[in-house]
């Protein structure tokens, strides 16, 4: 009993407890560079594991692995850079980031580049093309956290109305591209902010019912390919060579891996191209086939540790803005993991969500690491605040 109370006391007290000894009064090296060593270690381990799987999933292409490694390196730099900014700066810039991204979404709507049947890309001629919706994944929680951080919490109804507006504008724009997956993820990030801010349980229940009753409406507004995905999810065998192929092949890959897996580079489903999109969205099936249940559990545990560390750090934030933003970032990160693994293992419909930091792809890695940079900034700048 005493042990338990000790633990809870320490859990409650430690993040805000001022430094006690002269030793710890001196800022550690890590604090000075504004990085969290534990989180960094976990992320780097995950990236390393991801590259190993990617080598196999890309058909043993060193070129793909190198390209991904460079992207991850860039992402780490972005993370470290953002970590240097103080939360105060972030909070100040939040409306600008949100407003700018919103404008870009409007630009996409008006003159975006069409790729794969959807308008998602914005091209800055000669420089780059990118998806503003990706940026919104960060701009959205920043804006909401900045807004709610100045208000009295838990948020009251007028505040909630403003939040709803902030949420709805970009989400609708992204959904119209159409990119239902990203719009839902952006909405999820926003909802996490509001939930963490202390939205009353009564409201939560109310909105849950509202969303449930809105589902048929959503269904009616879906594109054919989106409906097909849901239908296929419900019964993959109905079209085994068409829409059901992906899910049948990915569950087959995972299931045939067994406890210990077929061994690195030995997965037949993966190496013989039965698995679709094996180095992007379905990369976890490669992991499951070649490293088995043990590999899957290890990676899931790694994600759990990252989420745990993230939640821990967000609890250490000194103001509402930092807490809400950090909490939302880390929970959204988990949602990515859950949706991706859930989809590949066949308990969720197929939506285009990559496995964070493991799937091949630049934009999402950079966005995610930028999020972790913000998280570290929030964690490492707290002692600079006046007491």
């Amino acid at each position, binding site marked *: 009993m005493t042990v338990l109370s000790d633990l809870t006391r320490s859990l*409650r007290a430690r993040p*805000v407890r001022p430094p006690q000894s002269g030793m710890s009064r001196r800022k550690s090296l890590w604090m000075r560079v504004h990085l969290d060593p534990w989180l960094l270690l976990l992320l780097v381990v995950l990236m390393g594991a991801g590259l190993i799987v990617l080598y196999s999933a890309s058909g043993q292409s060193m070129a793909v692995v190198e390209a991904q490694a460079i992207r991850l390196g860039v992402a780490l730099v972005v993370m470290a850079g953002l970590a240097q900014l103080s939360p105060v700066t972030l909070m100040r810039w939040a409306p600008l980031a949100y407003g700018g991204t919103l404008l870009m979404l409007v630009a996409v709507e008006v003159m975006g580049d069409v790729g794969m049947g959807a308008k998602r890309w914005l091209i800055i001629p000669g420089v780059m093309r990118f998806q503003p919706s990706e940026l919104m994944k960060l701009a959205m929680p920043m804006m909401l956290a900045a807004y709610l951080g100045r208000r*009295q*919490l*838990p948020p009251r109804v007028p505040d909630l109305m403003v939040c709803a507006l902030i949420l709805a504008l970009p989400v609708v724009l992204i959904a119209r591209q159409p990119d239902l997956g990203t719009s839902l993820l952006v909405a999820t990030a926003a909802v*996490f902010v509001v*939930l*963490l*801010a*202390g939205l009353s349980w009564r409201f939560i229940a109310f909105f849950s019912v509202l969303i449930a009753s809105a589902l048929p409406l959503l269904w009616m507004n879906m594109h054919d390919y989106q409906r097909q995905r849901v239908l296929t999810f419900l019964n993959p065998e109905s079209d085994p060579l068409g829409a059901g192929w992906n899910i049948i*092949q990915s*569950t*087959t*890959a*995972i*299931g*045939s*891996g*067994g*406890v210990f897996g077929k061994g690195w580079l030995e997965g*037949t*489903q993966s190496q*013989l*191209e*039965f698995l679709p999109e094996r180095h992007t969205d379905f990369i976890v099936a490669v992991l*499951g*086939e070649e490293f*088995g*249940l043990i590999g*899957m*559990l290890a990676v*899931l545990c790694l*994600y*759990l540790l990252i*989420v*745990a560390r993230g*939640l821990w750090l*967000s*609890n250490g934030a000194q*103001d*509402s803005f930092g*807490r*809400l933003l950090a*909490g939302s970032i880390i*929970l959204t990160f*988990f949602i990515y993991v*859950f949706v991706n*693994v*859930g989809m590949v*293992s*066949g*308990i969720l419909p197929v939506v285009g969500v990559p496995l964070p930091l493991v799937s091949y792809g630049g934009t999402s890695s950079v966005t995610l690491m930028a999020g972790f940079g913000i998280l570290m900034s929030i964690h490492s700048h707290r002692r600079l605040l006046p007491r």
Partner: protein
Amino acid sequence: MRKHRQALKNARQEMHTFRVRSLVAACLVVLLTGALMARLVYLQVVQHDVYITRSENNRVRVEPLPPTRGLIYDRNGELLAENRPTYNLTLVRERVDDIDATLALLIDLLDLPDAEIDAFRERSRQRQRPFQPALLMSDLSEEQIAKLAVNRYRLPGVEVEAQLLRYYPDAKIMSHALGFVGRINAEELNQLDPGNYAGTHFVGKTGVERYYEDELHGQAGLRKVETNARGRVLRELGRTDPVPGKNLTLTIDKDLQSLAVDLMDGRRGSIVAIAPKTGEILAMVSTPGFDSNQFVTGIDVASYRALQNDIDLPLFNRAARGHYPAGSTVKPFMALSGLVEGEITPSDTIYDPGYYQLPNDSRRYRNWLRWGHGKVDMERAITVSNNTYFYSLAHELGIDAISKHMHQFGFGERVTQDVYGESTGLMPSREWKRERFNQPWYPGETLSVGIGQGYLQVTPLQLATATAVLANRGHWVKPRLAKNIGDEEVPVDLPDTKQDITIENNEWWDDIYAGMENVLSGREGTARRAGKGLEYRMGGKSGTAQVFSLGQDEKYNADELAERLRDHALFIAFAPVDDPQIAISVIVENAGGGSSHASYLARDMADAWILGRDDKETDDDSEGDGA
């Protein structure tokens, strides 16, 4: 400071709320991760067996390796059936995007005649399993291959593949004996072992090719290959080599066979030659023949119809299936039956007034010589082919005894080891008539059978076989076409050979032989012209068969009818008498001018075989003798 504390208190409460909320979130995170893990345990532990099987099935494909069909040689090692490399057009439906467009393009490129298009489309649907190539067309020409190659990019799933195709260098003379292979049809597909025939497109349809299908085909091999999702073979995991079909050496002598075809000289009929001591069928000819190579690649409809409707029935194997009245060729066998039954002795004589009358019956059964042969004993009765003697003998024997003894010589039965589609002919009996017509047997009918007419019907193969048994002094050797199967020699003593005919007095054989020898060598012999200048002892017996319904059809025009109503000429022979090397039956349909025509052919066959000589110095003048 107070203001500060206020803010701090507020912050504390907010922090508390956040802590509770994040704790709830952490619980949810653990819960959801637990759900994922449970799903993974279900897939990877509980359902592991299901999925490992599924992934193996995905990856591993078993491809059949068809064996090479055995070659067929004649007794001297001359190649009769070989495998020639040709190019085939195949199609894998699964790899074709638009099947109708592809077929239309192919039909256009190959310049197919309209009549072939339906069959072509039909073939594209014939296969046993998914991803199995369907054979659309065999034996592509160089031009067709070139056209297909140029348009290859427009034809995914369509391949030109090399294949060995059966070829018969001497199709015209060997057609009926060899038979042919053809494309496996839907009906055969159900009967063949699908494993062994998975990669095989052809199967023996008739003749030796059909009878020895199992031996010639061999055992299919297989290879396990790893394929990727698009079905491309990446590597071979394992392999069982096919066992090629066994080569077959026939008892047929190609030269003798060829001679027989030449001797028939375009007439309809059949010649069968058997080596009596071994049962080896030396020649088995049915004319007209046909080009069996046409059937290998799939004969076109028009040509097939032409063959089918040809009034000469080129597709009909007369040697094995043609039913002919035996005519007088039955007489030596009748005589032996009489001796065994004790109804006659060789020296018993009758007086022939030119006809025979049954007791209490005014009807006269005529001898072919109107004024009769006078005093006739058994030997002379055979030599001059006296009908009256055999009417009398038949009457005394009765149909039951005749039927019994004729069966001993193989009449009314299938006699050979391996001739495909062999007919039993018809050896009538009291029971048969009761069953067939629900009528009693009349004594007059016995007389007809006694001279080889009436209900009695024999095949050329049966006649030759019975002659061989006769020449063998009753010792049965089953006639056969296979001399060696692979390296194994086919034994002379085959199972289910009929029992030897044993008689009390072995000299009776010689008495019969004497009568038959005189047919060719005697002053009164019915084939004495054909026997002129014989350099060895040859026994024979002529026969004339009244025409029966073979091929008779209302479509015939008057001229043809007249020609086709002429009698068939028959001749059986064996030589040398003291050491028989060959037994022959010859049937020339509608030969007219009596039976002598056939006897020359038999003589030439025997000369060729025994003297190794191939001269066809037949003088065609013939007198109306023999019946």
